[in-house]
């Protein structure tokens, strides 16, 4: 039950958390996925983030660049696009408003 609710909430928010992680700087897959994986309740199977990254790239919200790595083979770095920033800004507004509304109902039980 708790799992199902968490999964529902995650489904809508995860892609914007990915965009938020890329807002300040680019990151390579392993790095990005480990941060999400170590954030409580964000991702249950880290591997499922990769299909999401692929979808975000295809929809133009992020882009990839190969960069040489000191330790091994070249790494694929993800960075946010202007389109991604716009989507993130819109979600942020929506989320703040939604969160306030839910908080008001949950905490105060809808009673003024």
């Amino acid at each position, binding site marked *: 039950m708790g799992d199902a609710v968490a999964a529902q909430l995650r489904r809508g928010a995860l892609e914007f958390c990915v965009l938020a992680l890329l807002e300040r700087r680019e990151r390579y897959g392993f790095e990005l996925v480990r941060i999400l994986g170590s954030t409580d309740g964000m991702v249950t*199977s880290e591997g499922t983030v*990769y299909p999401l990254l692929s979808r975000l790239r295809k929809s133009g919200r992020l882009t990839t660049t190969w960069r040489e790595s000191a330790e091994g083979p070249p790494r694929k770095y993800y960075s946010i696009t202007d389109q991604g920033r716009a989507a993130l800004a819109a979600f942020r507004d929506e989320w703040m408003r939604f969160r306030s509304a839910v908080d008001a109902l949950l905490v105060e039980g809808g009673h003024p």
Partner: protein
Amino acid sequence: MTTATGHRQADNYLRELRQAARVLPRSHRGELVAEIQAHIADGLAQAESQAAVRNLLDDLGNPADIVRAALPPGGAPPTVGTLALVLGLVGAGIGLVPFIGVVVAIPLGIAAVVLGINARRQARSWGTPMGIATGGVVAGVIAMVVPLLVVALFLPWGSDAQVIEADEFELASQAPRGPSSVAGGLLGLEGGPAADQVPLFTPTKPTEPAPAP
């Protein structure tokens, strides 16, 4: 394409992923496998123990879940179990037709067994119906066995050459030593042990062109 990561568990994981990813379009498949492979390589570079490798793979999650996340919305993998079942049943039906059955039903049966085994594997990782997959395998085996049974039943009565041989064997073992006209006739044609009773082919008396002493 080989991917020796140097770790047996990691290699097994990638093999499993590649197997599960077969349902994806080719372009998606290559990208997904490459990403996970790079992730594992990065993780292995930091992993200091077998337990750390195990954790890395556990955190990645079940390969089937990853592939499921890569499917287009609503795009479940095609189920081959039903196809296996249909092929197997059709094969078993055609297998009832003597001789043609062997040629047609056995290949159908083999196809059904192969597809059925694949469908069973798919059922384990995707939750597609296991019963249908198993039915496909069973129907495939039946499709292979039925034509052989039918041929085995039809052979002795189906061709003339076989009839004579079969009857001959029966009669030869049952017939008394005396000259039974039927048995003698049949056996005589074959030049069998009773050939002396039918002097048509083998002369019973040695011809002696020996000159008088």
